[in-house]
Structures are given as structure tokens and as C-alpha cells.
């Protein structure tokens, strides 16, 4: 099984959710994060004092899927999230050792 972490622009959440649901992804977890890569931050001014704010708000969507399904999910997510501008973000794919459904105790791919 693979965990697919998508870190991208906050307003892309609905597009990505629609795209992933459309190909059969049944669940996901979303968190609000901050980060930067090549995208610069911005300047804020309060009573004449300038502050450079480097961290940009992003969303992180976590999805766990069967190995065979991973490539399709990544492709769908990338297409939905892409704008072509610096700041689109990244997708990380990592292996998952085990999955457990808490309600029933099922494990493995049945638990996804």
C-alpha cells in the first residue's frame, strides 16, 4: 500500500477532492500547513515595522491506496492541483507497512 501526500495551494482542495473521488478514492485526510520552497513569502507592515513572512499557507491531503492504484491517483491529483505557477507544491509517495480499520479490526488492503 502507498501513502500519497499532496502539499499544494489551499484553494485547490475542492478540485483535488472532486478529481480523486471521480476515480474511486473513498477517503482522505486534510490538514492546514505552512511551508515554502521556491515560492517567496510576503511583506506585512504594522505601525511602520516591516515583517517578512516566509511561510505560505498550504493544504496537505493524505490518501492511502493499494499499490496498483497509486500511479493513477498521483496523476489525477497532479492534474487537478497544477496551475503552472511557482508554489503549486509537491506530492510525496511512501510505502505503508500496515493499515487497520478501527471499527472492525480488519487489516491490509481490506482496511483501506
Amino acid at each position, binding site marked *: 500500500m502507498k501513502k500519497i501526500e499532496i502539499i499544494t495551494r489551499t484553494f485547490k482542495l475542492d478540485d483535488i477532492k472532486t478529481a480523486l473521488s471521480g476515480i474511486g478514492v473513498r477517503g482522505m485526510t486534510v490538514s492546514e500547513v505552512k511551508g515554502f520552497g521556491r515560492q517567496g513569502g510576503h511583506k*506585512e*507592515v*504594522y*505601525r*511602520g*515595522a516591516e*515583517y517578512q*513572512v516566509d511561510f505560505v499557507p498550504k493544504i496537505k491531503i493524505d490518501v492511502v491506496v493499494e499499490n496498483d492504484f497509486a500511479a493513477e491517483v498521483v496523476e489525477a491529483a497532479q492534474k487537478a492541483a497544477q496551475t503552472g505557477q511557482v508554489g503549486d507544491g509537491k506530492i510525496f509517495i511512501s510505502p505503508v507497512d500496515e493499515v487497520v480499520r478501527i471499527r472492525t479490526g480488519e487489516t491490509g488492503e481490506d482496511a483501506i
Partner: protein
Amino acid sequence: MNFTDNAFILICAALVMFMTPGLALFYGGLVRSKNVLATIMQSFIMLGLVSVLWAVCGYSLSFGTDIGGLIGGLDFAFLNGVGMDNIGSPAENLPHLTFMIFQCMFAVITPALISGAFAERMKFGGFMVFSALWLILVYTPMCHWVWGGGWMDEMGALDFAGGAVVHMSSGAAALCCAILLGKRKGHGSTAFIPHNLPMTILGAGILWFGWFGFNAGSALSADGGAANAFVTTHMAAAAAALSWIIAEWAHGGKATTLGAASGAVAGLVAITPAAGFVTPMPAIIIGLCAGAICYGGIMLKNRFGYDDALDVVGIHGIGGTFGALATGIFASIGAEGLLYGNPHQLWVQFVSVIASWAFCFAMTFVIFKVVDATIGLKATDEEQDRGMDIAEHSETGYQW
């Protein structure tokens, strides 16, 4: 007694009371979220502490029978002789209790103002003792000198609603505390970004509203003089809000909401000593100048390197000082200023400025040193990191 006046002044007292929670919100929004409650508390609790002290002895020390031009006696201690009639009332048209409670609200907000200078790093217990001593040893003498028949009153110093008693006193105290307490941990490297500017703007709106009670109420009667003070107050706030944001824009930035709110407050501070003595057009000029001058004033802390966290010196100290001098220039009602052929008034105002700053700074210095040595005033680096809300009050402002 005049019952119309009584109705008006009681309502004004309520308006001024409302300024203290307004100030709490104004300051609260400017600090980091981990310090919001501690900051609000330092204003809010003054309603408790100062009100009781005022009734017990503060009112008497301010307005009791004069002793040597320096302080009032204890004739009114525990509100003895302060009743529902006008016997002993400094304002004959008002019940003595009305005059006392109106003045009480001024006493409440003044030590609260100082808290802006030491926000985010002052321990609560020491703060309460400091504030109690400050009320008795700094506020009551100042109040007595200017309004209670003391030496500044005798000298002819003009202070309609508290430019010296409230603003220069708290400004001088703020400067003293900021220097003695030292900077916040991370000052110069950490970004101290206001966590809730909508709260600050709400606070500024409440302050503007309450200031009508503060200034118009200081006419102590519901007459044309109160109307004039109401209008000059409003016009100065309006003009200063504009001139502050123009100053921001001219200085290379954008007009900010914080600037508009800060400008309005600066205008209100500056018009406070002048409100009943000047007419509306000079009030607009005073406001225009105050916005720009106080904007420059807050830059001073960067020049001199003191951490006046919420700009009490820049707005109240400098605004109050400018207002006092402007009164000496523009006064035309009940007194004449420089522009009306009386340069002597400006000199008197200048003397009152020097005396106010010198006395308030020096006395605050002594009080601070004594309380710091005995109880301790500064929060440790670790407490500042955790946040004053947790460290001092075991509370969190927001449950995310």
C-alpha cells in the same frame, strides 16, 4: 443641583467606563495570541482594583481639602461626605456622588494605559501592586494638581479632560517601565505580529465612542460647552485618522487599518486637554498634526531602542504633550492662547508639560524599583515563550 446635568454626567461616566474594556480589546488584538488574555486582564482588572481604591482613598487624595497645593486631605476617605446631594461637590450642579464616579472612571483607565508598554512580559502579581501604588502616588497628586485645586490649577494650566493627568502621566510611566523592564525575549529578531486586528479596530471604535463621555462630560454640564467638546473631539479623531494614513503612504507604505485606528486614537489623545477650550476648526488642525506627529513618535522607539510594545509613549506621551502645547496655542473659549494674543498661556502649558513628565517619570521609577526588588516584575524567558496567558493565568484565549 441641575438634574439634566446629572443625567448627562452619569451617562458620560458609563461611557468612560466602557473605554476600559475597549482599551483591553484594542491592546489585546495587537499582541500575539498566547498573550491575549494577560493583556486584556491588565486593563480589565483596573475596573476592580482602582474603583475600590478610589472609593477608599483615591478620590479624597485627589479632591479633598488642599494641603500645600500638593495633595488632597483624607476628608472624603471611604466616601465620607460624598452623598446624593451637592454638599462638598466640586461641581455644584451635580450630586457629589456623580462627580466622584465620573472621576473614578478616569482613574481606572489611566494605569490601564501604561500596560501597553510592558505587554507580553509583566508578571501579574507585581503588576497589581505596581498599579495600586501608581494610582496613589502618581495619579492622585497629578489629578489634584490639575483639577483638585493644586498648584498647576493655581498656575492656570489648561487641561480640559486629562492631557496631563491621563496621557502625559501614563506616557511618562510607560517610557520608564519600558526602559527598566527591558525588552521582550526575541525583540529585534522575532516578528511580533498583531494576532487579531479586527479586535483592535473594535477596541478603537469603543474608545472613540467612550471619548465623547471623556471629553464632553468634562464640561460637567449638558450645555453648549459640552456640545463644543463633543464636536472638537470627533473632528480631531477624524482628521488624525486621515493624517496618519497619509503619513504611512508618504513614508513609502500603504494606508493600513491599524494606522487608521491608531491615528484616530492619537487625535483623541491630543484633543483631550484642548476639547473645551478650542473650536472645531482648530480641532481639525490639531488632529491633522497629531496623526503625523504620533506616527513619527512611534518611530522613536526604534531610534532609541526601548521596547514600548504597544506604543504608549508614541501615542499617549507624545500626543498628550502636543495636545497640551496646542491648547496653549489655539485656546479661545474660557481662556486665550498664543493665536489670540496671549503667549503666556503657552509658557504655562510648557511648564506643566515639563513638570508632568519629570514627576511622573521619577515617581514611576521609584515605584518600579521597589516593587521589582520585593515582588519581581519581569517574566522569565521561559514564561514568555510559553505565553503569559498560561504562565500567569492558566488560561488559553482560544480553543482551536
